[in-house]
C-alpha cells in the first residue's frame, strides 16, 4: 500500500506574493502526523522577513504557526514536539516567556538549542503535530 503524503499550502499569501520561496513546503501531512518546516519570522501576507528581537520573532512565528496548523485542520494543542533553534542560548528565557503564552498546559515536548541560523534569523521553530 502506498501511504498518502499531502502538502499543506501556506495560509494567507498567494505563492506568487512570496517572491522566490525556498524549495520547502511549509507543512506536509504523512501518517498520523503533520510535519511543519522550520519557521522564521515572516509576514504571512507579504512573505517579508520581520527582523526583530528573540521575543518578537518568537511571537510572530508562533502566531503564524497557529494559523498554519489551523488551516491544516490541526491546532497548537495537537502539537506533540517542538524544536526551537536560537541564535544564542543566552536568549532562551526570552523565547520561553513568549512561548509559554501560546502553548496549552500541559505543553508539548520540546528541544531548544543554539545554532547558526540563515538570513539573520534569531529564532527558528519547527514542530510535529497530530494531523
Amino acid at each position: 500500500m502506498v501511504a498518502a503524503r499531502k502538502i499543506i499550502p501556506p495560509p494567507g499569501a498567494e505563492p506568487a506574493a512570496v517572491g522566490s520561496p525556498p524549495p520547502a513546503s511549509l507543512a506536509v501531512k504523512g501518517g498520523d502526523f503533520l510535519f511543519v518546516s522550520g519557521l522564521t519570522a515572516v509576514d504571512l501576507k507579504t512573505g517579508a522577513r520581520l527582523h526583530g528581537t528573540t521575543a518578537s520573532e518568537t511571537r510572530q512565528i508562533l502566531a503564524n504557526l497557529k494559523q498554519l496548523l489551523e488551516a491544516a485542520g490541526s491546532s497548537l494543542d495537537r502539537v506533540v514536539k517542538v524544536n526551537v533553534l536560537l541564535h544564542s542560548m543566552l536568549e532562551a528565557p526570552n523565547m520561553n516567556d513568549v512561548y509559554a503564552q501560546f502553548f496549552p498546559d500541559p505543553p508539548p515536548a520540546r528541544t531548544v538549542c543554539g545554532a547558526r541560523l540563515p538570513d539573520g534569523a534569531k529564532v527558528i521553530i519547527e514542530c510535529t503535530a497530530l494531523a
Partner: protein
Amino acid sequence: MREVIAAPRPGLDLRRHYGHHQSPAIRAGGLIFCSGMLPIDPETGERRHGTLTSEAHVILGNLKLLLEAAGSSLDRLVQVHALIYDSIEYDVLNRVYRQYVANGPPARTVWAAQIEAGFKIQLDVIAAA
C-alpha cells in the same frame, strides 16, 4: 490522541525546576516524543556538569527512566538526534552511546550545537510506544 508522560522522578520535571514550558514526553500515534534530555540529577533536578562521557551516562540513565515509565525502553528507540558542543568529541560520544544501544541501534544524526547551561551533550529522541 496526545498523552503527556509525566516525569518519572522529581528531578526530571524541568518545568518545575527551570521553568521550561515543556512536558517530559508526549505519546501520540504509536510514538513517544521526548523533550531534549539533559544531564540533570533525576532526584534533585541539579545540573550534573562533567565530561561528555559522564554527562551522556546521566542523560541515558534519565532517558531509560523516562521511556520505561512510558511503557517503552532504550531498545525501542527509533530516532536519535545527538547534539554535542564540539564535533571533536564524536568518537567519545560513540564510545559511551554504544553501551546503551547494543540491540540494534536506532537511526541517528549528530551535530554540534550550543546547549543550554554549557552542557556538552543533549539527546533528542523518538521511541516506539
